[in-house]
């Protein structure tokens, strides 16, 4: 019974995937809950042993995160403050058990509208690296996520890495998640904010909101309202109406649509305020 493939190289993996019907497996924290069976059904390919899929490296072009890097590895890594939001998200994904197994690549490929990894990566202008037998391609994360549980990944492609351009490694970032309980909770709304501050003014702003639209998204209108603003005035510039205009939240079990967009605006204000706080001398 060869229903569980563990190729040693990406090339081997692609060759196996070319045959079709192969499900990549990383942490399994999305795949196992999706089945009631005792074993994972179908033809499974374990990506966690593939070279280059785990770990974080920096180079002149920026930062590369292997797709199979776990949340725990992300949280423990020493990273620039621009990635603080991602690290804050990492310790709020599920509980420790989930963080030890679950991966950032799995989070993106699973493409839940409430995936906590997405907003922090959106504010980092992240590109995803997809490898198929036709070659390598890179896509902005926003284009990779095409809808709830839908991505631009072809069935025979692997997500191998995330690239964060050097230009996005500046500034500081912050993540906030709102849920109905303390741990192990799916977000009602979550936000990530990355700000560059120069001489008390915001020189660059990147804001993203998750769980309030089919896929998490950036808020260009709000970003431009913040750009150039004095830090102290920044939170007040985030207006509910502008945030609501960028989102298309749903009414569901966890919250009403109106509540969601109002909460997202409030979370954004708070994260911006946190980042704009004068650093105590």
């Amino acid at each position, binding site marked *: *019974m060869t*229903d*569980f493939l*563990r190729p040693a190289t990406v090339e081997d993996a692609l060759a196996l995937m070319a045959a079709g019907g192969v499900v990549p*497996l990383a*942490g*399994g*924290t999305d795949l*196992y*809950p999706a089945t*009631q*069976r*005792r*074993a*994972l059904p179908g033809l*499974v390919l*374990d990506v*966690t042993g593939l070279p280059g899929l785990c770990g974080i490296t920096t180079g002149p072009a920026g930062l590369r995160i292997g797709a199979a890097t776990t949340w*725990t590895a992300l949280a423990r890594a020493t990273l620039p403050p621009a990635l603080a939001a991602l690290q804050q998200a990492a310790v709020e994904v*599920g*509980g*420790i*058990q*989930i963080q*030890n*197994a679950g991966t950032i690549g799995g989070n993106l490929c699973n493409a839940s509208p409430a995936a906590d990894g997405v907003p922090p990566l959106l504010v980092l202008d992240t590109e995803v690296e997809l490898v198929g037998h036709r070659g390598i391609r890179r896509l902005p994360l926003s284009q990779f996520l095409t809808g709830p549980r839908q991505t631009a990944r072809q069935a025979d492609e692997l997500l191998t890495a995330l690239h964060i351009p050097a230009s996005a490694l500046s500034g500081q970032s912050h993540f906030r998640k*709102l849920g*109905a*309980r*303390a*741990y*192990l*909770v*799916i977000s*009602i709304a979550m936000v990530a904010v990355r700000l560059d501050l120069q001489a008390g003014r915001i020189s660059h702003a990147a804001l993203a909101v998750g769980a309030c639209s089919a896929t998490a998204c950036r808020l260009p209108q709000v970003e431009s309202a913040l750009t150039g603003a004095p830090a102290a005035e920044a939170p007040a510039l985030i207006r509910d109406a502008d945030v609501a205009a960028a989102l298309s939240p749903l009414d569901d*079990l*966890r*919250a*009403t649509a*109106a*509540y*969601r967009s*109002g*909460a997202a605006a*409030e*979370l954004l204000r708070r994260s911006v305020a946190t980042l704009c706080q004068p650093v105590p001398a």
Partner: protein
Amino acid sequence: MKIDLTLNGAPASLNAAPGLRLSEALREGLGLTGTKIGCDAGDCGACTVLLDGAPVCACLTPAARAHGRRLETVEADDATLNHLRDAFLRHGAAQCGICTPGMLMAGTALLRDNPAPSPDQARAALGGVLCRCTGYARIIAAICDAGPPPLEDAPSSGTVGSSPRRLDGAAKVAGDSFGADLWQQGGLIVRAIRSPHASARFHFGDLAGWAAKTGAQVFTAADIPGRNRFGAIPPFADQPALAETHIRQRGEAVALVAFEDDGSDPDLSGFPVIWDPLTPLTSALDAAAPDAPRLHEGRAGNLLIAGHVRRGDAAAVLAASAHVVEGTTRTGFVEHAYIEPEAGAAWMEGDCLVIRACTQAPVMDRDDTALVLGLPPGRVRIIPSAVGGGFGSKLDLSLQPLIGLVTLLTGRPSRMTYSRAESMASTTKRHPSQISGRIGCDAQGRITGMEMDGIFDTGAYASWGPTVANRVPVHASGPYCTPHYRAEARAIHTNNPTAGAFRGFGVPQAAIWQETLYDRLAEQAGLDRLEFRHLNALRDGQTTVTGQTLHSTGISQCLDALRPHWSRALAEAAAIPGRGVGIASCWYGCGNTALPNPSTIRIGLTGAGALMLHQGATDIGQGSNTVIAQIASKALGLPLSAVTLIGPDTHLTPDAGKTSASRQTFVTGRAALAAGAALRAEILRRLNMGDAARLSLDGATLVASEGRQTARLDLSTLPADARGYALSAEESYDPPTLPLDENGQGSPYALYGYGAQMVELAVDPALGTVRLLKITAAHDLGRAINPLLAQGQIEGGIAQGIGLALMEDYIPGRTENLHDYLIPTTGDIPPIESLLIEVPDPEGPFGARGLGEHVLIPTAPAILNAIRHATGAEVTTLPALPHRIRAAMQRAEK
């Protein structure tokens, strides 16, 4: 695939499909059943194991991933883990014990990194493991005190009033044996085919063809030899073990499929059943309409039952009252969410069908299973497994008749474990309620009268609906003197999940209505909210709404105990915006409502000097195994350490009734008291010693001494009595009650327990989120037989009350997992201070009253009252999710 690993420090290998869940590989392949399965989805953490030292969910880990790695489970013999086990026992951190292995493993990983964690660090490390019993406080305390065990200065005597380690504790910290953990090899695995529709007709296609193709055996209602109808309350029995032609609720079983128990993973997707879905009745109001389709013959208007209590003339009095408030509250389905889904095994012993499963009511299981299977009760033996939480739902039959049927018809052992989704879809829930009415008081703030109408969605089948309908009107006054009263509770059938027993039998829902209205009434009367309650608290000699005159009432004492905390909290809250303080009380009658519910306890000394306690009260975590033994040992006068527990087991233990209605400490406790006392009297009579003699056991010799006088009895010389013992006694107790008349007047309970809780919280005004800061709980339990266990009950009940108030909402088909159905985690429970009030009740053993359900009742209304105090928001639909609080705040601002 052959997987080589280091398992608990030693090399091991196992053969498993590489994609098999590691939890399955451990349990089924290696027989290591200490790793528990609560959800198979990463949501509960019960399956936590350490892979190269890091906690992971074994249910989400492919077996292949253990290859070449270090795996540790609760079966490990490791210093950190062993110290933690000891700390769990010292602190009373294991109640039912189903979460304990996961807690221990996650805790061990933390302690290796950080031997002296702070409570916050402990909470974060255990945030991925759910516990439904304890409220986490004792678990966190144990984690923070997990060094080498302290030298015991004086081991607890175990006497009444002390807190010895629970007698079943060692098993719990080793990974106890629950319903899914013991089975006979070479049998059958049973799975149920369940309806995805809430209302449907159905028929089968080619069952024989499907069976032939899959090698499975199929059983349907046509195979049931007895009466295909069961129910907790016999006159209302209406639930088929397997549906015959109609589906009345989602998740109802229509057929059983039995496969060889050889590790295969059958695919049931092609099972030949053809559904003809009908429009379901999903609201009690719609179902009560005269033209609504009827779920059950003979139940017009889909009314299962209505309970009433009438005293005086409430309408007239309210019309003339100085202050009257009126309001409606709504609550939804609440899932018990015990971490152990229903599970059990069956086998034949001669012509006796043995069923070992998790249950709260072994004798009721035996009798109802026997009826369904057409057997005399004596041919069914129920052996309760350790029970991984029950809270009311495991009072009802679940898989007992199903595995019983398969084993009876095939003669082969069988076993069945519900999936989380199956457990949630098919078992009972707390009744959704809509409660409306009015409460009035005079100008001085004395309650004049109350009118209450409650509509309870009882779902598809009767279950404990009649109990809810009867308990609610009796209790809806709260523990307050209410001279004029009219209350009605109607239980209406719908195609929703069957609503049954859940900690409090509808009283928590009624208390939400009454206690929130009390706050508004206090405000109108211009009285402090605590003092208003104190003024109206029932006192000795006053009568209840059923006309029962009370003695040894402890409610005003509970409020007295809260008063200093209340003033402090009010002063603190006044200084900080967004802070609120709330209070609510409870009372609750222990035992069945005006119906017999006897318990019997047997105790015996063997010829070898062993003291055997036949203890038939199932311990679902609440502690009966320990408390009943403490009572019996105290009454007998031999130390707790001498006691060996037998049972529960319907072949070995006399009937101690069901574990519900907060009755075990009281009712079975009284039986244990009587049995212990009877055995003592017999011993003293034989030795011709006086009442004050001290007894001890010296091997097979029983020694009685008083002053300089000593007498010995060599037990080995005595002939075995009819029960097989050298000496034994068996005693029963049934609480004295008086039936309720047509106006609900009578004395439905022999005793009541009382309590009041105070909640301090902060509301985030922009987000509507609630941060609980502290809960102070004063409960009059008459006498704390075991204070540690009592505190554990309080903390656990409060945790469930928090869930009810703030997050829990079961929606059929949408929240059938612990991902979407949220229960509190370690981070959701504030510090809890328990104040144990002891107003002895002459009827209770050593004065003790029940406590198990009381503790949940005040929490939710106290939280709502604190939210209103903080923000003005009146949340009347539960749970008080952030968006509902925000909306209520906006309404209050207008």
